[in-house]
């Protein structure tokens, strides 16, 4: 059994495997994970909207030992991750991190939010730092989801071996 504590290090190895495959192999996998997550949150998000999202991520904050604040406002939910345990484990890892590790979060979150009538701005800040910010809004015309993503440095353009 891979302990649940070590799932993200396994996840990281899956990303490395997919990161050199033809087509959008990583994107396809994120969408599969997104469909899996529907089991946990789709009904909650649809029925309770931003309040339901607050409840889900508050549960995640505790259970995944996140250094995160959640700010539920009338028109949006702001999640500020200042100590991401997932990236922290993946960088504290003898196998080394996948260069695109952070991409998986918007990869699974955005399809799910859009399926429930919301959009977001996802700022990944820096792929090497366990910090990011996610702001979720009710969907509105002219406001598509956006991801602010640091480009990969030129020496990391090739997949992790």
């Amino acid at each position, binding site marked *: 059994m891979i302990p*649940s*504590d070590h799932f993200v290090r*396994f996840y990281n190895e899956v990303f490395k*495997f997919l990161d050199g495959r033809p087509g959008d192999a990583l994107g396809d996998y994120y969408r599969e994970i997104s469909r899996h997550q529907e089991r946990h949150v789709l009904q909650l998000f649809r029925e309770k909207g931003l309040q339901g999202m607050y409840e889900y991520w508050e549960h995640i904050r505790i259970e995944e030992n996140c250094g995160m604040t959640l700010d539920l406002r009338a028109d949006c939910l702001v999640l500020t991750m200042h100590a991401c345990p997932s990236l922290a484990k993946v960088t504290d890892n003898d196998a080394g991190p996948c260069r695109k590790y952070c991409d998986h979060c918007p990869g699974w979150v955005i399809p799910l939010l859009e399926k429930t009538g919301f959009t977001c701005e996802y700022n990944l800040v820096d792929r090497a730092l366990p910090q990011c910010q996610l702001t979720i809004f009710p969907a509105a015309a002219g406001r598509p989801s956006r991801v602010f993503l640091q480009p990969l440095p030129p020496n990391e353009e090739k997949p992790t071996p």
Partner: protein
Amino acid sequence: MRYRETGELHKDFHGALNTTVDYVVKTYGREALREIFRRVGRDVYRSIHAGLQAGDPAELVEHLRYFYTREQADFTLTVGPDAIVLDVFECPAVAHLRRLGITPSPCFCDQTVEVNAGLCEDTPWTTTTERLGPGRCRQCFTRGKDRQP
């Protein structure tokens, strides 16, 4: 021990792992899944692997005891000089899938078989996993008499 997590446990990761197992097998084949798990055994758990290469299973024993205890597994661990036997009477990962209403993938237990194989790769140790029923198994690590360092 190289990794020693504390704090809360997020057991729903076992569900994401089950989804991943099915996805990789369906899309890339079972051998791809096995190779990913073997990499976890060899590379993520590099210090356990290095210990086994040097003939020292202490970190493997500590890892098994620590994480099966942390996941509240029903298990026994028997440690001898040349053999380590982990009897799992109720796998916490399988038990959690059941709580979530998820049927374990037919390849779900590859994580155990292949991670253990990766741990033992190019070492004096060999490993076997006997599946004894749903959520039950016996994992053995045996020092090969003819390959001791």
